[in-house]
């Protein structure tokens, strides 16, 4: 059987024009795994919060679908919505997002289960601001200019935050014997 992949744009048009549930479910199935992993990583592994953010991402996305200009991919656009929701969550919970641009070396908390201490756990243990920049740059592949635009910070700030985040990750990995110490 030949599997026919319908373009995102066609499916999206069916969703906003016809309110087609089947088209939405196709889009949902196509993009949710990547969005969920991204959101979960930015939020430091909190599945409950990640699911709430993901649901709201889709709701806002569908609501604004008619206005989407298709100058970027649908997934990129949705990840932008998700990122903004994550930032709102950080602000609401006062989880230190404001320390993004200034501050001393981050304090990296040890993970709850040391045997699972690996790169993923080291990222999870980062402060929200550092973790966000690290995920966007080193995992998702955004440039500092793109990160600056998305987070409303300067590219230089993004660079400095990334440097701090990487140092913190290395410290965490070295402490648990899985990394290589880099003298700084």
């Amino acid at each position, binding site marked *: 059987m030949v599997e026919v992949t319908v373009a995102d744009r066609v499916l999206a048009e069916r969703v906003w024009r016809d309110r087609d549930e089947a088209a939405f479910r196709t889009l949902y199935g196509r993009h949710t795994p990547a969005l969920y992993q991204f959101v979960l990583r930015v939020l430091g592994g909190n599945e409950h919060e990640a699911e709430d953010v993901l649901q709201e991402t889709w709701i806002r996305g569908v609501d604004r679908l008619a206005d989407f200009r298709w100058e970027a991919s649908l997934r990129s656009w949705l990840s932008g919505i998700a990122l903004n929701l994550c930032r709102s969550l950080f602000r609401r919970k006062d989880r230190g997002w404001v320390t993004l641009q200034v501050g001393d070396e981050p304090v990296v908390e040890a993970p709850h289960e040391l045997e699972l201490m690996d790169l993923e756990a080291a990222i999870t243990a980062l402060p929200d601001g550092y973790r966000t920049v690290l995920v966007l740059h080193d995992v998702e592949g955004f440039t500092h200019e793109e990160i600056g635009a998305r987070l409303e910070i300067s590219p230089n700030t993004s660079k400095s935050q990334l440097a701090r985040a*990487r140092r913190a990750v290395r410290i965490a990995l070295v402490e648990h014997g899985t990394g290589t110490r880099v003298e700084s």
Partner: protein
Amino acid sequence: MTSDDHTELTPQEEAAFAALSRQRAASDVLEERTVRTLRARGFLSSRPWVRRPLVVAVGVAAAAVMFLSGLATGQWLGTQTVTRSMADAQAASAMERAVAVQRAGSAYVRALEALTQIADTSTDGAVAQGREAALTALYAAVNELVLLAPDDPVSVTLRDVLEWQRQSPSATQLTQVRNVVWF
């Protein structure tokens, strides 16, 4: 960022980042929750096919075929005396009734074809009356089809369309000649 910062990723670190998973399955519950919320806010319809013109057109066409069957039944019964019709109806097998429906449907179509042939030349109201009779019969037949299969979306859609037409301003013109009762 430069290498002097000692924050450039080593090849091993780059490989480690690249190996991180890019996807994770979310729960099915989340999908259903999201869909329910979108429905509740009017962003999704549980019956999107109603809004798809092509689907509606196909549905109407299919319903028209079924209508002929129902219509033929009524026409056949209308040619009999009440007693004879009732007796025949009770005695007839399912196959006999289906055959009768088919024959009456064919007769109905032929009658409409004959009417169509004179539609361009006739100036009196006979054609309009004939059309009105056909539509009235169509509506009655579709109602029977809905009674026959209440859950059939095609029959229900066609009935809704016809009811809408009967209630629309253009339908008023039809009611002006609705003195023709065909059975």
